Every structure is written in structure tokens, then in C-alpha cells.
């Protein structure tokens, strides 16, 4: 095989995206002896520091330090990658808003196969890669056979290749590729980021969250969750459908398009457990799932589960908690 494998490292404001080490695990599934080269784009001290940090785990880090990519603009980074990537390489990206922006076009430009949102890699034989993807909102999985003879751009589902093991520390070397990269007159210009409004409560700072999903049924049932939260000294958060229905403010949304939370305890009531929602939960909290559908994906993520209608169960739980607090 001896194919070059690259991993694009996403970072923002000095913080590296959580799943940046997953690529190493994924790469091993393609080739156990793979040496993955991390690719870091950015500007100034920030990119320098990120590159150094990444070099603790990646044997080689290619760094591009340019003002034009101080903010990661996929339309600029894509042609720059063309300047440095060797032919037939395998290029990995996270399947997030940046990966979806950069990946498809990149695969065309470097004439390689695009394999999006991969949750597992089952085998790699010669020029064929068999991966696992999901379809229909995660209801079913598929095996997909990919011809990677002229390389591949693979986007990895964040968290799908996480392992319990501590990643191996190495002393990688940082290679400055800035001079190899040509300046780009991109037809898409970054202007600014408008931050989501901060609501009355910052759920990303809370230790205990009582989270509700579509299963809450109606806006008028939300007090059931609020009472439970109050009894626990917790705060109510929710999944995207609750915000879309305008039952709760967007600042309460947990998920990849909402807030990232790092609680110690996460009670998921009436939440199905889509990966976009679970993607907003970091730090491996103690997850309790309450859902009347025993097949809901949430039970895969949870530590403890209750198969019940939250509208019936939550008030009882609230009572029990109040009793415990008293006695």
C-alpha cells in the first residue's frame, strides 16, 4: 500500500477539534503500519502552537502559515492543498461543517474518490476499501465498497473512531509547507462570524443537565422537565427539534449545530440519540436515557436507561429525588 495518509486538523481560536486523534485510529484500519501526516492551516502564533501540539501525536505535521487562511476558508485551502498533496493520497477530514465544505470539491480536484461520513472501516485490500456508512438518519447501516486506486478523500464521523486507549505519544516533526503554497484569489471571501445569541443560561457551563427532545410532545409539558431540573439543582437543555418547534430558545440546544456541553450527568428524556445531538456532548458524562422506544439509538450511548414515557416517569422521579433530599 505505502500510500500517504493525511489528516486535516480543524482548530479554532487555539482550540483543536476534539476528534483530531481519531484519524490515527481510522488510518490504522486502512493500513496498520500507516504513518499519518497531520495537515494544519492557519496564521501566526495560533497555527504554530497548534502544529506543535499536534506533533505530540502525529509523526509528521505539515504546517501552512498564511494570513489568507487565518480563518479557514475552504475555497482558499482547497487549491493550496492541491499544491502540496502527492498523487493518490488518502486525505481524511472530519465530517463537520468544514469537512462538508472542503471535501467534495477537493476529491474532484485531486481526482480521487469521495467517501463521506464514515463510521467504520472494515477492510482494506489492495485498491479497495470497505467502509461502513449510515443511511436514513441512522436507521440502517451499509457496507460500501470504494475504489481508491487514485486516492480518496474520506470524511470521518466525529467520535466514531474514538477509543478508550490513551493515544500514543510521539515526537513528530513539523514541516513548514508555507512556501510551497501559492497565493489564491478566491471567489469566496470570509467576512465575519456572527455568534449565536447567548440566552439567559449558559448550558455549556453546567454540570448537570436535564435534556428534552421531541418526546416532550408539547411546549406545555416543559414544566415537567423544569421541575425535575429544579429538584436536582440542574438546568434544562434540549435537542434541535425542540428549538425548531420554537418551544425553547436556541441557547438551550445541545448538538453539533447547537452548544457543546461537558456535564458530569446528562439526563436525556424523549431524545432519540441522533449523532448530531450526541456530538454536542463531550467529556464522557454519566448518561441516563428515558425514552418510550426501546430501540432508540440513545440507549447505545447511555449508561443507564429507562424505557418509559417521560411524561409519566419524570414526575415520579422528581418526587423520589425530593424525598432523597429530605431524608
Amino acid at each position, binding site marked *: 500500500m505505502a500510500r500517504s495518509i493525511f489528516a486535516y486538523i480543524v482548530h479554532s481560536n487555539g482550540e483543536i477539534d476534539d476528534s483530531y486523534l481519531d484519524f490515527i485510529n481510522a488510518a490504522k484500519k486502512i493500513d496498520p503500519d500507516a504513518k499519518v501526516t497531520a495537515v494544519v492551516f492557519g496564521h501566526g502564533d495560533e497555527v504554530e502552537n497548534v502544529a506543535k501540539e499536534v506533533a505530540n501525536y502525529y509523526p509528521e505535521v505539515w504546517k501552512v502559515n498564511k494570513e489568507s487562511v487565518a480563518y479557514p476558508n475552504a475555497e482558499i485551502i482547497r487549491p493550496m492543498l492541491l499544491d502540496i498533496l502527492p498523487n493518490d493520497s488518502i486525505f481524511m477530514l472530519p465530517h463537520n*461543517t468544514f469537512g462538508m465544505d472542503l471535501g467534495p470539491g477537493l476529491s474532484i480536484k485531486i481526482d480521487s474518490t469521495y467517501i463521506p461520513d464514515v463510521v467504520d472501516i472494515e477492510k482494506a485490500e489492495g485498491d479497495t476499501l470497505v467502509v461502513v456508512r449510515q443511511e436514513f438518519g441512522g*436507521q440502517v447501516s451499509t457496507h460500501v465498497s*470504494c475504489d481508491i486506486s487514485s486516492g480518496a478523500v474520506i470524511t470521518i464521523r466525529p467520535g466514531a473512531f474514538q477509543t478508550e486507549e490513551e493515544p500514543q505519544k510521539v515526537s513528530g516533526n513539523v514541516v513548514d509547507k508555507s512556501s510551497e503554497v501559492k497565493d489564491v484569489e478566491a471567489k469566496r471571501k470570509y467576512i465575519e462570524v456572527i455568534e449565536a445569541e447567548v440566552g439567559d443560561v449558559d448550558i455549556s457551563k453546567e454540570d448537570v443537565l436535564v435534556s428534552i427532545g421531541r418526546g416532550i410532545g408539547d411546549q406545555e409539558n416543559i414544566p415537567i422537565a423544569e421541575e425535575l431540573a429544579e*429538584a436536582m439543582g440542574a438546568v434544562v437543555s434540549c435537542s434541535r427539534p425542540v428549538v*425548531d418547534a420554537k418551544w425553547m430558545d436556541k441557547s438551550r440546544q445541545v448538538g453539533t*449545530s447547537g452548544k457543546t456541553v461537558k456535564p458530569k*450527568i446528562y439526563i436525556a428524556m424523549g431524545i432519540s440519540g441522533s449523532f448530531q445531538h450526541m456530538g454536542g456532548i463531550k467529556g464522557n458524562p454519566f448518561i441516563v436515557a428515558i425514552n418510550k422506544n426501546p430501540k432508540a439509538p440513545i440507549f447505545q450511548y447511555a449508561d443507564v436507561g429507562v424505557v*418509559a414515557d417521560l411524561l409519566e416517569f419524570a414526575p415520579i422521579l422528581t418526587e423520589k*429525588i425530593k424525598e432523597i433530599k429530605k431524608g
Partner: protein
Amino acid sequence: MEILVCVKRVPDIGENEIEITSDGKDIKREDLVYSVNEWDNYAVEEAIQIRDKVGGSVTVVSVGDDEWEDVLRREMAMGADKGVLLKDEKFDGSDGKGLATILKAFVEKGNYDLILTGAQASDDGAGQVGGMLAALLDWPFASLVNKIEVVDDKTLRIGREIEGGNQEINEIQLPCVLSIQSGINEPRYVSLRGIRKVASKEIPVYGCEDLGLSEDQVGEKAAKVKRIDYFIPEIGKGAEILEGDLEEVAEKLAELLKAKGGIK
């Protein structure tokens, strides 16, 4: 502005569970109903609103078979001026690049300023055709667009939905390709009467030859990505389900939460 919107016909998943056939080669389709991909519908609504503001026309295009005409007609009933079907047996089994190649051939027959696609499709969730089409055409691209403002006939100001619910503002030059995120607007309802009104409107059909494509560019033969089967993965360890009646379970859970420090 001449706007092209690529739309896909997908199964309605809604309240219904998807089941796999016994041989695992496909999902059970007898009881399925189909409709336009939700993201694509948002894209068509956006295109219509832009056209109503600055003038021009909206064309919807699909790569599919005769059954896809219903979807095209519905979008025309919504307000798209024209519908086009790219149909050919040779297109069957195309992967993302194949579809983008077919669409590119069609785009080059016309004179479009703006191409919209949905951010992803509810069936395979790949989110790839828009970006690929842009690269093939060498047009600028932006994905997950949740806001479009026409600055002038050469420039758009767009917002992209990024992590944390934040919005990334960009200026992009026309012609360009944008993939549209759900929630960008509130799509209008298409009444049955509206669909009847466009029932006899013509939908031109173009095949492989009409588009000047060769067999080895499209279809199964050219596809580098092929689905082998569908399966339901084995359920791993998962959660420990608490047993008992609701009172008992609530007590157990309350104790557990206290032990984990969840009760302040």
C-alpha cells in the same frame, strides 16, 4: 438571475421504520411513499424568493426516472418556472461524481448564474453533489448556507451554519454553487390544486447522448463507490435498562443519581 436547483426524490421516512430485505441488498420499498428531499425543497423556496425579488427564472432538475417527474412537477407547482429530467439507463448506479458529471453537462447547455442544491439528502446523507458540481464547473462553492442576500448581479452575501449555532458570513461571486441548509426559510405549501395546474406542463427529458456524455463517465461502470448491502449493526453493550415498575425504577435511579453527585 437564472437559477438552477437540483432536486432529489427520496423515501419519506417520517413516522415509519425502514426495513431491510431478507437478502440485505435493499430496503423494503413496497410501503414507501416518496417526496422531494426536504433540503432541496428549502432550496427551491429560496430560489423562488430570490427570483421574485430580482427577476429571472428558476429551473429544477433531477437525475432520475419517470417517477421523478412528480417531484419536479411539485416544485414547479411551488413556483419554479421550468422542470427538466435527466434520464437514461446509463445513468443508473452513478456515484456522487457521476451525478455531478451529468449535472455539469446539463449546466453547460444553459446559462445559469446560481446553482442551489440541498445540503444533504435524507436517504444517503452524503452532502457531496453540490461541492463536486462546483469543482467540476470551477465555480466557487459554499455549503450549509442559511442566508442569501443579493448584493448585485455579480455578488452574493451569504451566511453558513457552523458549529455552535454560529453563522459564518461570506461574500461569494457569481456564478456559484450553494448547498442550502434547512431552516433558511419557511417553504410555502403546495396545494393539490397547484399541482393540477402544472399537470400538463412539459418536462423535457435529456439522456446521455443529448448531454454529450460517454458511457464511461457515468453510471455503475464509472462509479468508484458502490453500496454492497444494508444491515442493522449488532447492538453493543448499550445502557443498563432499569427494571421494575415506574416507582421502583424512579427510586433506583434517584439513588444512582445521588451517588454520582447529580443531586445538589
